[in-house]
């Protein structure tokens, strides 16, 4: 899984097209050392055709028949019509796809859907409580922390993940927490203001 706030792991170092064609099982064999391989139980080969994948998204169970190479982002956007989080760069650089998986922000464009079965997945579509915006969403509206809005869902999910982990971040922690996201319209100043203004996010 591509974790944004960790040192790059093996998967992150590799190119998505690579694991798209080899499949994720093949990838593990390519990059793991013999000792690591021995420690793993050899997983059964899946694919290349459609396989059942069960995801828990925003507290709802979603059953899909997809190829193992389908990313979490694409599974939700193209198979579940959860289009809130966007595809910007498609390789873990821009952050528009940021979702929260088991409490941690991940680049969903660089995370295979099949990898996150059994985990709690949250994307921006499920963040508000009906018409009641999440405090982070409200702060973005109040501070005009968005322009075209295409990067916004990713920024919001990254901000929520940051504030759930650390409800009172220092300015430096806010900057570091959001450094994995890019806004081309240039709303950073106001995103910083918005996130700084949010109080009372529950520790996740």
């Amino acid at each position, binding site marked *: 899984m591509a974790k944004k706030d960790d040192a790059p792991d093996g998967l992150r170092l590799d190119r998505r097209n690579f694991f*798209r064609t080899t499949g994720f099982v093949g990838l593990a064999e390519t990059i793991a050392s013999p000792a690591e391989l021995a420690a793993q139980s050899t997983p059964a080969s899946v694919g290349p055709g459609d396989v059942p994948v069960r995801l828990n998204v925003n507290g709802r169970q979603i059953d899909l028949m997809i*190829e193992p*190479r*389908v990313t979490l982002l*694409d599974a939700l*956007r*193209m198979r579940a*019509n*959860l*289009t*809130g*989080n*966007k*595809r*910007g*760069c*498609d*390789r*873990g*650089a*821009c952050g*528009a796809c940021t979702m929260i998986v088991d409490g941690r922000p991940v680049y969903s464009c660089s995370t295979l859907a099949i990898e996150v079965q059994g985990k709690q997945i949250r*994307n*921006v*579509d499920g*963040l*508000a409580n009906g018409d009641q*915006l999440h405090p982070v*969403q409200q702060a*973005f*509206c*109040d501070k*005009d922390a*968005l*322009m*075209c*809005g*295409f*990067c*916004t*869902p990713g920024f*919001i999910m990254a901000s929520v993940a940051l504030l759930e982990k650390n409800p009172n971040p220092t300015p430096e922690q*806010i*900057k*570091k927490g*959001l*450094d*994995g*996201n*890019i*806004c*081309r*319209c*240039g*709303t*950073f*100043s*106001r*995103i*910083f203001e918005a996130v700084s203004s949010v109080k009372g996010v529950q520790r996740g």
Partner: protein
Amino acid sequence: MANSEFDWPAKSSVLGTRVNRVDGPDKVTGRAKYTFDINRPGMLYARMIRSPHPHARVVSVDLSSATRMPGVKSVLMVRDFSSAPNNRVMFQGDEIAAVAADTEEHAIDAARSVKIEYEVLPHLTIVNKALDGTAPPVFTGGNVRDGRPAQAGDLTAGFAAAAKVVEGTYSTQVITHTCMESHGTVCEWAGDRLTAWISTQGISGARENFASALGIPQANVRVLCQYMGGGFGSKALSVGAEGLMCAKLAKAANAPVKLMLDRKEEHLATGNRPSAASKIKAGVSADGIITAFDAQSWGTGGAGATADFPLPYLYQVANRSRSHKNVFTNTGQQRPMRAPGHPQGSFNTEIIMDELADQINMDPVEFRIKNLPPQAPNAMWRAYLQEGAAEFGWNKRHATGDKTPGPIKTGMGVSVNTWGGGGRGPSPAHCEITSDGVVIMRLGTQDLGTGTRTLVAVITADALGLRPAQVRPEIGDTAFGVSALSGGSTTAASISPGIRVAAVKALDALKEKVAPALGVDAASLVAAGGRIQVENDPSKGMTWADACKHIGPQAITAEGDWRAGMSSTTTSGAQFAEVTVDIETGIVKVTRVLVLQDCGLVVSRLTAESQCYGGVIGSLNFALFEDRILDRNTGQMLNPNMEWYLLAGMSDIPRIDVRIKDQPERGVIGLGEPPTVSTAAAIALAVRNATGVTMRSLPLTPAKVLGAMRQGRA
């Protein structure tokens, strides 16, 4: 201009205030549907097939394997490649074919399976080789085209009058628009009628474009763009090869098709800001007047596209000469990019300004004021420079070269900008008020992300005495009438007058309905604070909801259009930047930027300020990070992505202070372009002030800063 009832109000409780973006909640929840988000029943996914070579002859294309791939429904050539000259591809990413399949993964597989045989031809991607004649002859009629020369005054006399002369070569790099939402389209046919969702800066133009290219009446095409993820000029001109292929694939497959470009295609084939370079010799008198400016400039806008820019930028020089060469290269064609030409002109001009000022020991602010055009409402630089210098603490700026010990040096720089902008018609707006009190303002414009919907709501609400949230703006649909493309900071100034006219007319009609019930003359009524009432007499009035009950079953409708006198043209701005430079690593950090910017009448203050923040950050990217890097041997782009095509992140953002200089008497002007023109020059000059070394080429990478310092010391 005679007063009219449509004139902008002298006072307003809405206009120019800090109104939250009306579509904010839709954008923060993910409910806002961008083209990329449109999913239609039975929709197919398409991919383009493109040349990997910067210059080649297509010998053969075999689509048969692709048609047999799983899930494939349609494969089409972009054009017939069977004979010259149509069989040549001119840049990496040049379009060849497209494929539609049931899933995107299948479309990608099928695109890879297309067999194309190329005869690779010698390519030209290095501008200097074209200029010195060592490049292969690629372009019919020559690789280099002379631009129009410009001359004024007497250059020889000007240099003779100079106390000091400076010479230098300056350059800016090719950058790409890198919109967060890539270019793309969803097309759906019903018989010979096409519905197209497209990420575009001009839905009206897109409709025309589809109709003429597909040979169907414009009336048969409906174009929709409710939300778009940025354009910056790259989505202004046409629906592109990918837009047409999407429509053709959908027709051939008899199913809706989505074709969104990927990030690599965006960098290669959807436009860029051309490079700009100049060799300048300029003279200055002892009292600080530029006496002569002699420039030879060049740049590349790609395969067959020009690369012009203003030079000198803004400053008045009586004696000047300028020649220009457009260099064609085997790269994707340029497209307008936020203030086309101006950032390049600004950088190529402003650096030598500080060099000249140093030669005569004059402060850069004072030197600029001496050489700028005389002050006028559309030429306010002198005032902004003085005011900005005071606020920024310019008097604390040290002379060129920070002499304090230690590796971190600080410096300040300044620059000025202008842009035309301004409005024009036709730009019709349609206002509708129904008996339930709902107000719709409908027009065929689109929102690049600047906040057009909010502007529509603010102007309508202001005219009707309502809150912006009580207005329903409807845009982004060609069914709402023709509207100009959103480019060149023209949208606000083009649509605002028509919106106000339509709203005022609708209100007049409502007053007529209400007046008899109140037993007053309709002319005595005003709309304010959610009420229709006799001016200064709340007892003779009613709430908006009650007033609208008098409308009856037939809604009030009114039309408006752009009117002269309600918009204006040409802005002025000045920017100050402060940086630190680590002279051991070459890393530049921008610490502060001050923006002084006018835009006529401010409609929506929050979004106007946001344009300035965004402009500064865009220009900071241009100054420090962005660069389209081509492999010198293969001519292919080395960083067609977002990890090596560098853009600022949160930690790179300085403190930015925005001072909008209101000029309400000038009407609406527009603000997208000007704030992004000059930050880069101010940053480069701040680096010069910090290090004592002149940075003449963007971007200011650590390697370049260290290199320049090494040279500067030698």
